[in-house]
């Protein structure tokens, strides 16, 4: 009975693993599904035009703009757990734990 239950648990865990999205730690998986597009190189004339645009007073002052999290984002992050420290249990360890668990 115990062995049968353990087997069912392993099958369920394997099924979950097959359909689960990639873990956060596996960030590379996002890109490995296909090679990235190749951006069209910016031409010299375009680069110069952009520099002229950037030198306009309205754009020039954008250098002083800061982008960082708002307090709202900080709260959101604390609610979900800080990314870097969020532990994701690898599926293999999960299965081993289930199989070893006293049922």
């Amino acid at each position, binding site marked *: 009975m115990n062995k049968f239950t353990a087997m069912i648990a392993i099958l369920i865990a394997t099924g979950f693993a097959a359909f689960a999205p*990639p873990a956060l730690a596996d960030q590379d998986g996002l890109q490995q599904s296909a090679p990235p597009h190749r951006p069209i190189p910016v031409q010299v004339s375009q680069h110069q035009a952009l520099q002229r645009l950037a030198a306009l007073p309205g754009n020039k002052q954008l250098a002083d703009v800061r982008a960082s999290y708002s307090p709202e984002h900080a709260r959101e992050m604390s609610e979900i757990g800080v990314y870097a420290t969020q532990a994701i249990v690898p599926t293999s360890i999960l299965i081993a734990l289930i199989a070893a668990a*006293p049922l």
Partner: protein
Amino acid sequence: MLGAILLLGASGCAERIAIDKFPPGVLRVRYMPANDWTDCMVACTVMCANYVTRTDRFASSKLRDELEAEGLDVGRVGDVTQWLAKKRITLQALTGEYSSEDLVGLGWWVLEGGYPVICVINKLGGNADNNHAVVVIGVEGQGGIESAKKVYVLDPASPKRLETWEPILFRHYWGSAGNIMLPMYKTPDEAALHEGTE
């Protein structure tokens, strides 16, 4: 019992961070989460720099350390621009348009040029202290950004990682921060620049 708890825990985690593939047609930019509440600009810079240079040589922790070692502000556009310039990468701060207009249109960069673009957004509005950086990687729908049904955004602060926003919502967030867009590209070499000025 332990197995059931572990299973529930695992499925809960997977649901919160769910993103298993990119929608068709978007730029496949490797996601980089922010590890600190001031890190969104750094994370977006790393995402775009690795994509534009087609390498993995940029890392958030290293970028942050180097910026701080040089006394630069990790969240300030001008400081990040200055640091990237030494790497022969141009980060151009512009007031952009939600259009396909050459150079100033967000659609021109993302859809025609194939560049992920850092956009400064503000979900709360009014206060620049609430500015936040995200990376626009594409839109849903054919016929340009103007007729897009969704805007796809990599948000370094989002548990979903890939955000899908209605254009009206994106434009509201973007407009609240002044429609600031920061396209990034490899700087043309000096010889080519010299030829271009003649």
